[in-house]
């Protein structure tokens, strides 16, 4: 019974494919072809067709894709918008755009002009394009089920207000963003009111403001990305259920620059990430119920700055190595839980040899509290005077928060 049912389904699929093949045609576009312009090609095409664009330079202003077609570049044709137009506007579902180089979109302070802008639609694929010097790179407006894969997005922004974001999502759902590279935009990836989205293996570096920036974007995951040397690191706000795993946050240097800034984030996981040489690894404000596990904090100025407005966060099995300060805070009340982390500044002992230190570790030093209050005290760091203060404070804590401690510090680093 079952196999015959499968047979029927199989036959039907085959039939559909044949029918589909009968209908789908390929329209070739190029200097030597019958059809010279992409606009003309799209006009001729029916839903399901492929418009194959041969290599060459196309200056056609704003190309609107309003049919379910595949727009395919062969030999990487260039769409040049001469700093006036929006090169590609997608207004139909089931569109695929692949293999183009898209250059020089217009700039505007009223409209968000993008290299590829997707308007109010669904199931669009943007694959393997190179976007150079556009205002926004790839822009999803009120769209669902998009795939944005293998694109290279590059701009040469000089001021934050004069350039848009690399990949920009607004009021969208179920985006799949993978293996892209974004440099030189305002924010590498910016998501606002975007849900159920996966950002994977994307490299976002040297953007003017944030490598990744999202607000009100719930239930998203960020896995295997690299955020490097962005003007202000990564900032994420007003969001719940975020999953961040295997990301690399490095070389985000500056006073207001963070590996991640978490503002009003709750019920999230930050797992297996590496924070390498940032001024501040994680800055947390008003964030609750976040699990921060198995991360490496290496060579940061401040490993974690946790404001007193944070509650019920758990830090477990992290490695804190070669940070100038491991943890800093601005109050004495601590409602967060540090447990079984490895701290390279730990000086305790382990008599019962269970790998867990016998005396608790207090990661907040007096000096880091002072620096929090008077930043210029940094001048005296590692002075013998300050070391003396820190020692006496360790013996009799008065200024540092009594509750902020790791009761079970590890003797050896955790393999991450």
């Amino acid at each position, binding site marked *: 019974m079952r196999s015959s049912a499968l047979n029927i389904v199989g036959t039907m699929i085959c039939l559909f494919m044949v029918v589909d093949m009968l209908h789908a045609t390929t329209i070739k576009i190029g200097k030597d072809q019958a059809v010279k312009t992409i606009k003309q090609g799209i006009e001729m095409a029916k839903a399901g067709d492929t418009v194959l664009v041969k290599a060459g330079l196309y200056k056609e202003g704003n190309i609107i894709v309003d049919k379910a077609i595949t727009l395919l570049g062969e030999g990487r044709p260039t769409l040049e918008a001469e700093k006036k137009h929006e090169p590609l506007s997608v207004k139909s579902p089931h569109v695929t755009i692949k293999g183009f180089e898209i250059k020089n979109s217009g700039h505007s302070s009223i409209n968000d002009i993008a290299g590829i802008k997707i308007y109010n639609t669904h199931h669009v694929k943007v694959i393997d394009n190179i976007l150079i010097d556009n205002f926004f790179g790839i822009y999803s407006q009120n769209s669902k089920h998009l795939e944005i894969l293998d694109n290279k997005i590059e701009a040469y922004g000089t001021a934050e207000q004069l350039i848009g974001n690399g990949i920009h999502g607004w009021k969208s759902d179920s985006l799949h963003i993978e293996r892209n590279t974004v440099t030189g935009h305002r924010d590498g990836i910016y998501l606002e009111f975007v849900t159920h989205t996966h950002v994977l293996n994307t490299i976002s570096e040297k953007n003017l403001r944030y490598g990744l920036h999202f607000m009100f974007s719930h239930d998203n995951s960020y896995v295997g990305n690299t955020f490097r040397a962005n003007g202000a690191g990564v900032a994420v706000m007003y969001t719940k259920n975020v999953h961040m795993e295997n990301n690399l946050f490095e070389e985000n*240097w*500056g*006073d207001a*620059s963070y590996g991640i800034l978490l503002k009003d984030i709750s019920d999230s996981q930050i797992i297996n990430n590496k924070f390498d*040489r*940032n*001024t501040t690894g994680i800055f947390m404000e008003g964030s609750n119920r976040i699990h921060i596990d198995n991360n490496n904090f290496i*060579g*940061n*100025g*401040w490993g974690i700055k946790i404001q007193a407005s944070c509650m019920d966060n758990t830090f477990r099995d992290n490695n804190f*190595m*070669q*940070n*100038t*300060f491991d943890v800093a805070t601005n109050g004495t009340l601590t409602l967060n839980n540090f447990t079984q982390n490895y701290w*390279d500044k730990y000086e305790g002992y382990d008599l019962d040899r269970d790998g867990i230190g016998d005396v608790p570790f207090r990661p907040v030093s007096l000096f880091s509290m002072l620096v929090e*209050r*008077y*930043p*210029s*005290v*940094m*001048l*005296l*760091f*590692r*002075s*013998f*005077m*300050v*070391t003396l203060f820190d020692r006496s404070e360790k013996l009799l804590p008065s200024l540092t928060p009594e509750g902020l401690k790791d009761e079970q510090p590890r003797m050896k680093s955790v393999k991450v």
Partner: protein
Amino acid sequence: MNKVIRYVLADLLRNKTIICYTILLFALSISVYSMEDNYEKGLISLLNIVLFVVPLMSIVFSSIYLYNSSEFINLLVSQPLKRTNIWLSLFAGLAGPLSLSFFIGVGVPTLMYAFSNSGLILIGCGLLLSLIFVSIAMWTSVLIRDKSKGIGLAILLWLYFGLLFDALVLFLLFQFSDYPIENMMVALSMFNPIDISRILILLQLDLSAMMGYTGAIFRDFFGTGLGMGITLGVMLLWCLIPLWLSVRHFRKKDL
């Protein structure tokens, strides 16, 4: 002049204290570097030694040596030798072995284990600190005739540069924290060679933290070629001014 230097050198290179100092520094450095899994942590531990032990040793040892060889100095002065030459030879004779011990004790292990910018700056600062504190000792010992008072002053000066100065800076910082005092703080740090060395090494070791707001001010100054030049100039002045004052005083001193 050469003869005097040679005599002082020969005397000091055989000196038990100098040999002990070298061995102690060497043992400390080697053990610190082999204990820490990462050379930067080793450098941080050594930083405290360089900023604390090197000035102490340089200033106290030089003072004691100068007071103990006052008869020898009297003898030299009675010879047909220029006083300036005698005094400078003594400086060279003292500074040479002390810097050499530092170089063997800390420099060589650092070059072996931590050959990097920060390591080189540590060695440079240590050598300069040796010279500076010898030169300060020359000045205090020529100013004060009494041995115990002189050594007391040397220790006080060391305490001042190593500890009290920072306490003073901290006090000023708290008092004037409402004002933009960062640039003043940079200027203030120039009044203490130990602080200058510490900040220079800090800028290498705690780079990420120094990228913050206050750090940026130090980095803008110490990180640039001009700032480095000025800093080096100030360190050299710290070495030359006490020496010059002491020479001036020694030339007219009634022995």
